[in-house]
């Protein structure tokens, strides 16, 4: 289940007012989320949550649910 916080960060990075994001949402379904904007989204998520992803971790992401789980695991490691 993706958090409202993550949704807000993603939509903010993509400059979208609103868009339905679920666990199964993939980048291609979201307007403006392509390879050119992908790293911007990643950077925004890192900055907001205070985490740092490895390149391989980001390249393995399939959907927004994967991103949420990655964020959760990074936050759990920090505690």
């Amino acid at each position: 289940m993706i958090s409202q916080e993550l949704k807000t960060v993603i939509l903010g990075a993509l400059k979208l007012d609103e868009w339905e994001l679920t666990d199964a949402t993939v980048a291609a379904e979201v307007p403006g989320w392509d390879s050119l904007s992908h790293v911007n989204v990643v950077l925004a998520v890192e900055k907001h949550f205070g985490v740092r992803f490895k390149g391989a971790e980001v390249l393995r992401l399939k959907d927004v649910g994967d991103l949420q789980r990655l964020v959760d695991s990074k936050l759990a490691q920090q505690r």
Partner: protein
Amino acid sequence: MALSFASLEFVVFLGLCLALVRGTGKVSVQKWLLIIFSYVFYLSFGVVGVIVVTFIALVDFHVGRRLGTSTTDGARRQWLWTGVAVNLGPLVFFKYSAFLAETMSAVLRPVGVRVSVPGDPLVPVIGLSYFTFAGISYISDIYYETIAPTRSISEYVCYLVYFPKLVAGPIVRAAEFLPQFRCGVQFTAQDFETGCAYLLVGAVKKLVIADRLVSHVSMILAAPQHYNASTLVQGMLGYTVQIYADFSGYSDMAIGCARLMGFRFPQNFLMPYSSVNIAEFWRRWHVTLSKWFRDYVFLPLEMESRGTGNANMRASRNIIITMLFCGLWHGASWNFVLWGGLHGVALAVYLVYSRVLPRQTHRGRRTALHLRTLVARALTLSVVMVGWILFGTQTLTLAFKYLWRMVTWSRDGVALGSPYILPLTALVLLAHLFIDKDRNLIEEFSSYSAPVRIFTFATLMMTLTCLVPSDGVPFSYLRF
């Protein structure tokens, strides 16, 4: 003689393969039959390629196994780069050594250093660029842990040499192919019908559209100084349509061959000339290649350099670097490098433009006939067509001469009247305008009523029977 998809010999070859493979239910037997047929297919292009692809398959398999068992980051990176280097070795040797030698010779000659340039061209290895990239994707996906290495060398060999995709793609990833392959060759009546539809549509695109254009277009591209501007514009339009019809036709036929065995290949062309910006173009043109460069060059570059410097400058630099390599992949020539650079700059401009746009409420896609959409499509297609001049001419001098004569509207020169260029251009561009660019009519084919399907098949067959030129022309993308 090389087996071409668009030949009767290939139809017989494919029929025999299907009959034998379908005749056995055992996956292991099917695998060896496909390996044998793929090697027979590839042997028709020459023995050197067979040696090279076998070498790469063996290396990839063993590097993949080592990557899978390595536990430290350092060891994994070493195996990754070892695999990439060994895969690129034959590509650099066979495809780029003369180009590199000529370039170094030109650079060092002014300072008195002589570099010997090979006099005779090396034996071309057809398909080398494609299966090299397939191999690198396999090793990289193991490194990124998106797939596990295969334990069966014959399974990997089958993946790499599988004949529908071997010589000109699509660049199918192991993660896409192996899970399907492990279920065995099994197809439904729907698969058979859809596969035949892909084959027929691809054959029409290649034999009826592309081959009709090639002779006039080649003449114009080879000697632009002889033709007036109006003819040069026609040549540009003709090449735009020819390269699309030839390459997407080949991809359709490759997808169709695989579908006849129940395998689903990724789509490679998604109505690219309907794109409203250059980024969308690259999501629709040679999709498997652009995704390869996105996943294995651009995104790693972005991830390694994120947070450094200005974000727009960094991303622009990375996209230009990526597209320069994409251009170089297409051929050992500065024309291709400049073509890649043009697209890289266009993508960078689009990237900066889209980032400075204000926040927007997404209202859904406008119809194709909306004025802003038409203008956007026309602008995007214009950039693409200018790029095709760089792509289709033999030298930079010819390319600049071509563009200059168009820009200055040179009236001297021959007016070449081709009865095919404008009608076929209109046909293809109108299809891009009126067919929903997110629909795949071939995939929907089996859902149509029986009379519609029969009529469509009959029309395609008659078109092939009546309108194919007598002289066959090789697929143009085999040379990459």
